[in-house]
C-alpha cells in the first residue's frame, strides 16, 4: 500500500511548481494590501507566519497560473521571488571577504542571485514569449555581464532553443557566484593575495539595465517589477546595507523592493551610513500583528488551509471533525455553563460586575476558569485537555506553522499506529500529548545562560546578522518576564473572586526604558510575545502598546487559551520588576489585588482583538 504523505508537512514554497502554488494554496495576500502597493516594503514576522508562501504566491508565474483567463499584461505588477538562503550567504569565507575587500562582491552575489530568479521566471513563461525579444534580452545580459568584467561563452547563449539559452544564463549566474566562493577559499590557503578577475555586477551597471530590457520582452506590460527578497536575515550585515542602499534610491514605482525578515534584520544603515526610514523609504508590515489584530481573519485562513490540505490528501473531513475536542471535558464544560447560567438567573452572581452584562458573556468568561480551578483542587490540572480544532487554532498564535507542525506530528503518530489505514481524525489524547510536549519545548528553549558564559562569549555586532542574538543577558530577563506573566496569569485564573480571571496580555503605561524595550523586542522576535496597539481610552491619549503572551505557552503555564481574554494594565516600572524577579512581580501584583489598591479598570476585556 502506498504510504500516505502527511497532509500537514510544512513545505518549502521555493520547491513548488507555480501551478501547484496557484491551485492549492490559500491566497493570503489580500490580508496584506500594503504589500501590493508600488513602494518598498519590509514584511516582518517570526518564522512560520507564511511570509515566503505569500511572496511566492505574488510571483508573476503563480499569478499568471491563477488568473489563466487573463494575460500577464493584465497583472498589476511582475513579482520575482528571490529566496536568500543560508547556504548561499552564510559562508564564513565570503563574509570575511566582503568585510575586508569591500561590498562590491556582496552586491555582485546579490545581483547574480536576483538575475538567476529573474531568468527562472522567463523560462517558466518562455512559451508565451517572443523569441526575438528574448534573444535581445540574452544579448543585453551578455553585454552587461562582460562590461562588468565577466566572460560568457557566446556559443552557449546564441544557439539552441529559447529555454536552453535562458538556462545557460542561469548557469552563468551560478558559476559566477561559485567563482567568488573559490576565490574566497584560495585567499585562505595562499600566502599571497590572489587578484579577483571575475565579474563584479552592481545594481546600476547591471541589474537596472537588465530589468529595463526584460520589460521590452513581448507580453510584458509597463508595470512595476517587484523584487521580493525573502529572508534577508540570512544575509550578513554588510549585504543588508547593500539592500538598504538600494531601498534608499527609491526606484519605485518602476522597481519595488519587498524584503521579508524574521525580525532579525541587523541594520537600516546604507553603505554610506545613512539610515533608511519608514514611511519615507519603505513601509513596514508586521505579519504577526495583522493576524493578532484580527483573529477572525486568521481563523478563516487556517480553516481554508487545513480544509484544502485534507482534501489534497483524500481525507473527507472538516477540520473540526479531524481534530475533535475531548468529549468528557466538553460535557463537563457544558454542565458548568449551565451552573453559571442558573446562578446568574437566580441572582447568585454579582450582575453589577463591571464589563459583564449578559449571561452568555458570563458563561464564556468563567466556564473554563471554573473547570481549571476544579481540576486544580483535585490535583489533576494536568488532565485539562487542549484538544480540538479551535484550541489548536488559538494555540498557533497567528503563526500558521505553529498549527501545521504539531498537526504533522499528531498525524505521524496516529498513522504510524494505524497499520496503513488513513486516519479520519486525531484522538484528543494524541492531540493533547503532542500539544503539551510542544508547549513545554517552547518554554524550555528559553534557557538562562550562566552569567560567566555571557561574560566570556563575545559576539561582535560587526559580524554577520544571520539571526544572531547579541546580548544574552536579555535572554535571562526575557525568561523572567515570561515566567512572571505566566505564573501571574495562572494565579489569576485560579482566583474565583477575580473579576477578570482570564488575562493573557499586558498594556504598558508610561514610557519603557531602552533595556525593557530590548527585552520586549527580543520576546517578539523569538515568538514568546506579540505586540499590538491598544485603543486609546481617552481622546487625547496615545495608543498604548499591548504585549500578548504567545498562546503556545498556555499549556506550559496551564492557562485558558480560548476566546476572549482581558489584558492587565501595568506600569513600565512593574515590568522592570518582572524582568529582574518574577517572584517579586507576582507577589506585588497579588498584594495589590488583596489590598484592593488595584482598580477594576486595570483589567479590561478586549472583545475585538483576542482570538
Amino acid at each position, binding site marked *: 500500500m502506498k504510504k500516505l504523505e502527511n497532509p500537514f508537512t510544512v513545505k518549502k514554497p521555493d520547491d513548488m511548481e507555480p501551478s501547484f502554488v496557484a491551485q492549492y494554496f490559500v491566497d493570503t495576500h489580500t490580508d496584506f494590501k500594503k504589500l501590493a502597493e508600488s513602494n518598498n516594503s519590509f514584511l516582518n514576522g517570526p518564522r512560520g507566519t507564511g511570509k515566503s508562501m505569500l511572496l511566492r504566491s505574488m510571483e508573476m508565474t503563480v499569478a499568471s497560473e491563477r488568473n489563466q483567463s487573463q494575460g500577464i499584461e493584465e497583472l498589476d505588477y511582475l513579482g520575482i521571488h528571490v529566496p536568500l538562503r543560508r547556504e548561499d550567504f*552564510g*559562508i564564513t569565507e565570503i563574509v570575511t571577504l566582503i568585510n575586508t575587500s569591500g561590498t562590491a562582491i556582496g552586491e555582485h552575489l546579490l545581483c547574480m542571485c536576483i538575475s538567476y530568479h529573474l531568468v527562472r521566471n522567463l523560462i517558466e513563461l518562455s512559451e508565451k514569449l517572443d523569441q526575438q525579444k528574448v534573444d535581445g534580452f540574452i544579448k543585453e545580459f551578455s553585454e552587461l555581464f562582460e562590461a562588468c568584467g565577466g566572460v560568457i561563452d557566446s556559443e552557449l547563449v546564441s544557439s539552441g532553443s529559447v529555454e536552453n539559452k535562458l538556462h545557460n544564463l*542561469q548557469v552563468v*549566474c551560478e558559476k559566477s557566484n561559485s567563482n567568488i566562493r573559490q576565490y574566497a577559499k584560495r585567499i*585562505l590557503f595562499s600566502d599571497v593575495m590572489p587578484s579577483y578577475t571575475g565579474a563584479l555586477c552592481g545594481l546600476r551597471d547591471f541589474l537596472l539595465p537588465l530589468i529595463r530590457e526584460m520589460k521590452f520582452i513581448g507580453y510584458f506590460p509597463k508595470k512595476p517589477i517587484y523584487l521580493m527578497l525573502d529572508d534577508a536575515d540570512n544575509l550578513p550585515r554588510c549585504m543588508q546595507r547593500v539592500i538598504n542602499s538600494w531601498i534608499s534610491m527609491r526606484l519605485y514605482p518602476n522597481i519595488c523592493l519587498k524584503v521579508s525578515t524574521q525580525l532579525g534584520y541587523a541594520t537600516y544603515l546604507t553603505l554610506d551610513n545613512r539610515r533608511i526610514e519608514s514611511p519615507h523609504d519603505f513601509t513596514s508590515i508586521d505579519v504577526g500583528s495583522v493576524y493578532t489584530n484580527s483573529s477572525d481573519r486568521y481563523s478563516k485562513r487556517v480553516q481554508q488551509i487545513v480544509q484544502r490540505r485534507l482534501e489534497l490528501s483524500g481525507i473527507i473531513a472538516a477540520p473540526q471533525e479531524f481534530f475533535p475536542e475531548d468529549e468528557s471535558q466538553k460535557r463537563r464544560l457544558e454542565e458548568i455553563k449551565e451552573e453559571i447560567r442558573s446562578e446568574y438567573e437566580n441572582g447568585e452572581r454579582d450582575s453589577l460586575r463591571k464589563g459583564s452584562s449578559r449571561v452568555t458573556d458570563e458563561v464564556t468568561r468563567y466556564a473554563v476558569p471554573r473547570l481549571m480551578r476544579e481540576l486544580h483542587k483535585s490535583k489533576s490540572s494536568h488532565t485539562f485537555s487542549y484538544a480540538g480544532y479551535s484550541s489548536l487554532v488559538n494555540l498557533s498564535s497567528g503563526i500558521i506553522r505553529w498549527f501545521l507542525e504539531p498537526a504533522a506530528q499528531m498525524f*505521524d503518530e496516529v498513522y504510524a499506529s494505524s497499520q496503513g489505514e488513513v486516519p479520519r481524525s486525531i484522538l484528543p489524547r494524541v492531540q493533547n500529548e503532542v500539544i503539551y510536549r510542544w508547549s513545554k519545548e517552547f518554554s524550555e*528553549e528559553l*534557557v538562562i545562560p550562566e552569567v560567566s558564559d555571557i561574560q566570556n*562569549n563575545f559576539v561582535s555586532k560587526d*559580524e554577520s546578522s544571520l539571526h544572531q542574538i547579541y546580548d544574552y543577558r536579555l535572554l535571562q530577563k526575557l525568561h523572567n518576564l515570561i515566567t512572571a506573566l505566566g505564573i501571574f496569569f495562572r494565579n489569576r485564573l485560579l482566583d474565583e473572586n477575580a473579576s477578570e480571571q482570564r488575562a493573557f496580555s499586558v498594556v504598558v503605561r508610561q514610557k519603557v526604558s531602552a533595556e525593557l524595550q530590548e527585552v520586549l523586542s527580543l520576546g517578539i522576535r523569538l515568538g514568546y510575545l506579540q505586540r499590538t496597539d491598544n485603543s486609546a481610552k481617552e481622546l487625547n491619549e496615545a495608543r498604548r502598546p499591548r504585549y500578548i503572551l504567545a498562546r503556545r505557552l498556555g499549556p506550559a503555564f496551564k492557562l485558558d487559551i480560548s476566546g476572549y481574554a482581558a489584558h492587565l494594565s501595568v506600569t513600565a516600572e512593574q515590568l522592570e520588576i518582572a524582568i529582574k524577579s518574577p517572584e517579586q512581580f507576582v507577589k506585588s501584583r497579588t498584594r495589590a489585588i488583596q489590598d484592593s489598591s488595584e482598580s477594576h479598570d486595570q483589567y479590561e476585556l478586549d472583545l475585538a482583538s483576542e482570538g
Partner: protein
Amino acid sequence: MMTTVLSTSRLLDRYRSRRISILTRSSFEERWVKCINSLSSLNISTFTVFCSEVKSLETLKTFEDLDHRLLAIMSEITLPAGGNAEAYGIIRGAVERAFEVGVDGTVLIDVSSFKRDELLIVLSILGEIHPSYRKINCELLYLEASEMSDDWLSRNTLNVRTVLGYSGDPRQSKKTCVVVMVGHELIRAKDIIDAYEPSKVMIGKGIKAESINPELYSRNEQFYRELKSYYGSSCEEFEFSLLDPIKVKNTLKSLCGNSQYNYVVAPLNNKISCIGAGLFALENQDIQIGYSDVLEYNRKSYSVPGSNVHILSVNEILWVDQKGGVVATPSEEAPSLELEI
C-alpha cells in the same frame, strides 16, 4: 582502515623511541590532560596547547592536573572564537611549526577536546600541507569519554554558519538537504536544521555495536528519535560509524549523491565521525559543513574521560589518497600496531 586503540597506559610504549611534537586543545573537559599526561616522559620537541581567549574556572583547574614536565615546555596559543580567518592562520602556523620535528619524528594531535569547527580546520590544513611534510608520521589521538552528561551538553545557539574551508558549492538550481549526524545535543541539531530550512532532512545515529556503552547509545537513540519527530516521517534515516572515519566518509558518499541537492552536513557526534565528515567534504568540495556556535557548555559535568585512545594515521586516512601522498613508515622500534582494549 587500520585503527589502533590503546589504553592511555600503553601510549608511552608506542612513542617511546620517537621525537614527538604535540598539539592539543585545552578545555573544561579533563580528557585533554589525561591523554597528554601519559606522554609526558617522552622526547617532546614541541608541546602546543590551543586555548580560548578567556579560560573558564573549570579549564583553569584542568591545567593544575597537567604534568609539570609538560607545563615547563608548554606553548599556549590563544584561538579567537568563531572559527574565522584569524583562527585559521593561527592554527596553520602552529601545525606547520609542529612538522618541523622532521622526518624521524612524529606529530601527534590530540583531538579529544577540540571544538568540532577547529578540528575540521586542522583537518583542512593537514589536507593542504606541503608534500614534503607528508613524509612525517602524523597521528590523531582521540580519548573516548566513558560517560557524557545525561542532563545537557550545550545550549543557547549563538549563530549557524559554515566551517571555514568547508563552504561547499551551493547552486541556486538545487534544493537544500541537511544531513545531521546526531550526538547528544538535540537543540543544537534542531537549530542547525531550522536555520537552513531545508527541502530534505537526513538524520543519522551512531552504530549501536560501536557505541562505548549502552547508556551512551540509548541517549543517542533517544535524541535521534526526538529529532526525527520534529521533522516527520519524511526525513530519511541512516547510521554511521563511531570508530572508523573512512567508513563515515563512505556512508556520507552513498547518501549525498543526488545532484538535485546542495548538501549541508552537520557532524554532531564524536570527533572520529566528525573527522569522517571532514574527509568526505575535503574530497567533495561541493559539500558544505554547517556548524553552530553555542553560548554555553555544561562545563561542570560534560564528560568523564575513558581509558582508551583511538589513534588515526593522517598518512593513511588523508594523504594516501591525495596527490603526492606518502604513507610514512613508523620506525622499527615502534611496537606493532594492534587493537588492544
